[in-house]
């Protein structure tokens, strides 16, 4: 799995380019939403590997967001191909949202919780 630690200058540019790929409901970019867990560029092959998540496994925008990431990165210089690895470990939580996005959404503080998808029987 890729990570966001120690990104090279090129990788940071690629990450910044994802600003225009946003959650259509909040209008906030996938990076600010904390959906991108990792990004790695293989400079030789031009392959970009992205590890990302969704706010919930049942997110109806799964295809739109992953395809948007592929499309955006695929249009950048030096990128030949893009692989998106969708993961739910760790599960996305509100703490992952950036400060600027929190302000945009009018959040006062991030609730300390994660999505719950436990079933139950009646």
């Amino acid at each position: 799995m890729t990570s966001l630690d120690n990104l090279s200058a090129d990788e940071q540019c690629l990450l910044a380019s994802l600003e225009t790929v946003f959650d259509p409901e909040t209008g906030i970019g996938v990076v600010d939403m904390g959906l991108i867990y990792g990004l790695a560029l293989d400079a030789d092959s031009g392959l970009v590997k992205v590890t990302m998540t969704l706010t919930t496994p049942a997110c109806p925008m799964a295809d739109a967001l992953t395809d948007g990431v592929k499309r955006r990165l695929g249009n950048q210089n030096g990128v030949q191909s893009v692989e998106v690895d969708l993961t739910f470990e760790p599960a996305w939580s509100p703490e992952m949202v950036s400060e600027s996005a929190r302000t945009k959404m009018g959040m006062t503080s991030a609730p300390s919780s994660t999505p719950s998808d436990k079933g139950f029987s009646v």
Partner: protein
Amino acid sequence: MSNTGLATQFAPPFKLVNAHFLFGILGFVVAALFLNYFSPELSGHYLTPKFIGLTHAFVFFWFLPVVFGALLQMLPVLFEVPVRGVKTAGFAFALLAIGGPGVYSHLVNMNTSVGLIATSSFVTLAILLYCSVFFRTLLQAKKIDLTGWHVIAALCCLAFAALAGLVLAFHLHKPFLPYAHTIFLRGHAHLAAFGFFAFLVMGVAYKLTEMFLLAYGAPKTAGKISLSCGTTGVTLLSIGFFWLEPMMGILWAGDLGTILIGLSVILFAVQMRVILSKRMKRKLDAPWQHTIAAVVWLLVAFTLAATMRLGGHSPDVEHGLGIAYGFIGLLGFVGSVIIGQLYKIVPFLVWLHKFSHLLGGDRPVKPATELISKKAMDLLWMPWHLGLLCLVIGVLSGQANAVRAGSLLVLAVAVGLAITLIGVYRATPYQDES
């Protein structure tokens, strides 16, 4: 770990969902026109053919098409399964589109000919087919959560309500029930209104609130108890209306059912408050204001129901309470929720199917929330709730002018809603376009 889409690949054809929504949006305008036409006859009477016909117009023209379209789109998303029986759903839609207006025209004119049975059969068959599609779809789910159990309970009630409606059609054509059909009608109405619409709204509200407002992590204890109380309450109330009260004079089952339904409503409100307290998006826009107002209308409806159940009123008061209860339950609760969620779902769907492939391209794409006019949503909020208030006050006080004013406001909102939502379908994709 996966790199494939999870839910959208299971979605039914956009055309099918769209057809449901467009029918429902225009159906609301038609039903509102009928409401205006018959408004002088609505104050001070009880269960007139006009009132019964209008109720079915709102249900068949507006509520059911929108709800079925939303379920076709949402079940695959919520339960990560494909829709089973897309063609069946298309056929059911055609049956509903033909049968619904037929039932309305027969009821509103109190025409109990064999045509009423024929059109009622169309609608009943359509509803049973929809139920079969949704049950088959749900059966594939790996696990059923609180929303899923609500949907199952709602579909069971809908199937029974539809069959009860067909029984009534046969009875109106050639009477055979051993007691007054108005009592049977109450069972039919409560199965449809609380059993179907309320369970569905409650279950879906929990999930959509989490998804749209990013309000995850709330405990669901109140919701689980609410569902248990609600299902037991509806069962008791139905047994009471269909059998115990008219056949044996036993009232306790209906009374207990009413109390449990009331408890269910209160616990639903509590659960929603718990979920809303977890939301990341703090600002509640027009769609959510409608949803919260719907919960308030539901509490008012229950208060009226409990008042009627306690009895001791003059026939006139009782009649007025009955019609006001019907308007509040139907338009106040169900209508408000549907308007609010249409504001959310239609832009979301249009964005998903028409613009999502442009995301990440060279030109910045509009978010789904920018496809709909916020000004229009804000503008329509007050007339809708004011209109309902006028209707209720007019019915309770016997003031025909108040009923007329309320009906006009409802019509204005129906037209405004149609224009606003059709504007969403015509929206351009890029932020640098008007």
